[in-house]
C-alpha cells in the first residue's frame, strides 16, 4: 500500500480541470478550468443559476463532479482512495444560510469538529475557539445559542467555526446575501482581515466592492462556463465580453 498523498505547498491550492457536472440531464458546469493559488483571493461572480455554488461545492465534494479533475493542494479529491474527511477538514466552508448547529451553543459549535475530527483535547479546542471568536469580534458570546444572535453574528460564528479547524483555505458561498444590509459590513470586514493575513479564499459574491478591493482575481461565470477572468480592475472595469458587460451593467 502506498502512503496517503500529503498536501503540498508548492502547487496551486485548488486546480480545476475540465470539470463537468450534470443534475440528471441538466448540464450545470460545462467544462470549467481554473486555479486558485496559495494565499490568493479569487472572487467568483455571475448571474443566478450560472453554476457558482455548484462549482464551489464540487471543490469539497459536497457535490459529486460528473467528470473532470479537482486537485486540492495537489491531492485528487475524486480518487476513491482519498481521505475525504481529511481533505475537507483543511477546507473551511461558509454558507449563505450560516448552518450553525442550533442545538449547541456557540462554544460547542466551535469545538465539536475540533474534538471529533482533529481529536483535540477539550482545553485546547476551547482555547482555539476563544481565539477565533475574538478574531471575528464575538468574544463573550461563548454560551449564546445561535437563535439568540443576529444574522451577522451567526455568520461570523460560522466563520470562526471554520477557522477553528485551522484550514489551509476558505470557501464562501454568498455569505452576506441573507443578511440585512447594515450587518453585511461586519462580515466583510472579517473576510478582509482574513485575506490580509494571507488566507487562500474562493469567494462567490455579489459584493462587487469587495471583489474589487480584496480580490486578487475575479472569475465571471455564465451558463456553466467561465466567460472571463483576470485582475478585478480589468474584469470589472474594462470587461472584454458582451455577457460580462451585460451582467455588470445590471449589478453595478
Amino acid at each position, binding site marked *: 500500500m502506498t502512503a496517503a498523498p500529503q498536501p503540498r505547498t508548492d502547487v496551486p491550492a485548488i486546480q480545476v480541470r475540465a470539470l463537468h457536472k450534470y443534475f440528471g440531464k441538466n448540464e450545470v458546469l460545462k467544462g470549467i478550468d481554473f486555479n486558485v493559488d496559495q494565499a490568493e483571493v479569487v472572487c467568483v461572480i455571475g448571474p443566478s443559476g450560472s453554476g457558482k455554488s455548484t462549482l464551489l461545492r464540487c471543490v469539497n465534494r459536497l457535490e459529486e463532479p460528473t467528470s473532470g479533475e479537482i486537485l486540492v493542494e495537489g491531492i485528487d479529491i475524486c480518487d476513491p482512495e482519498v481521505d475525504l474527511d481529511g481533505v475537507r477538514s483543511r477546507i473551511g466552508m461558509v*454558507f449563505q444560510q450560516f448552518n450553525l448547529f442550533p442545538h449547541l451553543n456557540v462554544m460547542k459549535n466551535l469545538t465539536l469538529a475540533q474534538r471529533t475530527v482533529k481529536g483535540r483535547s477539550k482545553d485546547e479546542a476551547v482555547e482555539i475557539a476563544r481565539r477565533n471568536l475574538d478574531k471575528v469580534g464575538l468574544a463573550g458570546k461563548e454560551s449564546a445559542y445561535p437563535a439568540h444572535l443576529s444574522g451577522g453574528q451567526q455568520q461570523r460564528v460560522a466563520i470562526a*467555526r*471554520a477557522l477553528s479547524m485551522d484550514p489551509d483555505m476558505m470557501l464562501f458561498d454568498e455569505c452576506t446575501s441573507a443578511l440585512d444590509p447594515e450587518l453585511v459590513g461586519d462580515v466583510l470586514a472579517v473576510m478582509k482581515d482574513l485575506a490580509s493575513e494571507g488566507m487562500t479564499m474562493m469567494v462567490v459574491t455579489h459584493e462587487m466592492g469587495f471583489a474589487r478591493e480584496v480580490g486578487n482575481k475575479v472569475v465571471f461565470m455564465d451558463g456553466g462556463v467561465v466567460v472571463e477572468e483576470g485582475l478585478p480592475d480589468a474584469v470589472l472595469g474594462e470587461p472584454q465580453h458582451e455577457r460580462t458587460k451585460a451582467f455588470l451593467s445590471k449589478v453595478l
Partner: protein
Amino acid sequence: MKRTTKQRLVRLALYALFVVLLVALYFAADWPTIRQNFWNPGGVALSGGNWGDMITIGVKNTLIYTAIAFGGGLLVGLVAALMRLSPVAPYRWLATIYVEFFRGLPVLVVLLFMAFGIPIAFQWTPPGGIVGAGLIGLVIVAGAYMAETIRAGIQAVPKGQTEAARSLGMGAGSTTVRVVLPQAIRIVVPPLTNEFVLLLKDTSLLFIIGVQFDERELTTVARDLTTTGPSAGTSTSLIQAALLYLVITIPLTQLVAWLERRQRRASR
C-alpha cells in the same frame, strides 16, 4: 355602535345564556336518581369498593401495556423509518408496504387477527398468551404510525446541517449522532407523546379479546364492575374509569402543548 362595544355585548349575552342553561339543568335534573345510577363507588378505600381493582389491576395493567406497546412500537418504528430513508430500494418498498398496510386497518381488526385469526390458522401459541398476542398487534400498529413520525423528524432537519458537519470533516456516523439525531429527537418528542396518549387509549381495545382476571386493563375492569361489586347495575365504574384515564392523559396532552409552544419560540 362601535364595533368593540358590539362584540362585548354579544359575548355578554352568550355568557348569560350559558348561566341560564346551567341553572335550568340543575333544577330540571332528578339528582337522587342520577346519584344512584352514576356515582356509587362504594367508598374510597382501596379494599372493598371499586377503586381497589380499578387501580391495582386496571390502571396498573393499562400503564404496563402502554409502555410495552410504546417501547416496542418505537423500536419497530425507528427501524421502519430508517428503512424508508434507505438508499436501497427494496428496504424502502418493504417499509412503505408495512406502514401503509397497518395504518389503513382498524386497530380492532389487527387485534382480533393476532388474538384469534393467526393462532387458530397456524396452531400458534403466542408468548404471554392472548394478552401477548394483543400486545404484539398494538406494537405492530404503533410501529407503523411512529415510523412516519420519526421519518418526518429526521427529514425535518435541514440538509444544510449535514453539509456543514461534513464540510468540517466530520464523518457520516458522527454527523448523524452528534448533529442530525439530537435535532430530530427534539422534533419528534411532542408527536411521540401524542402517540403515547393514543396508544394508552387504544389499550382499552384489548377488552375485546377477553383476558384473565389479573390481566385486565382499566376498561375491562370497569366493564366487569358494571355487573358485580357495590355499584353493579350503575354507570359508576365507567365514570371512575373515565376519570382515571383523564388523570393520566390530560397532563400528557398539556405537556405536548407546552413542548410545542417552547419549540415554536426556540425556532424563531
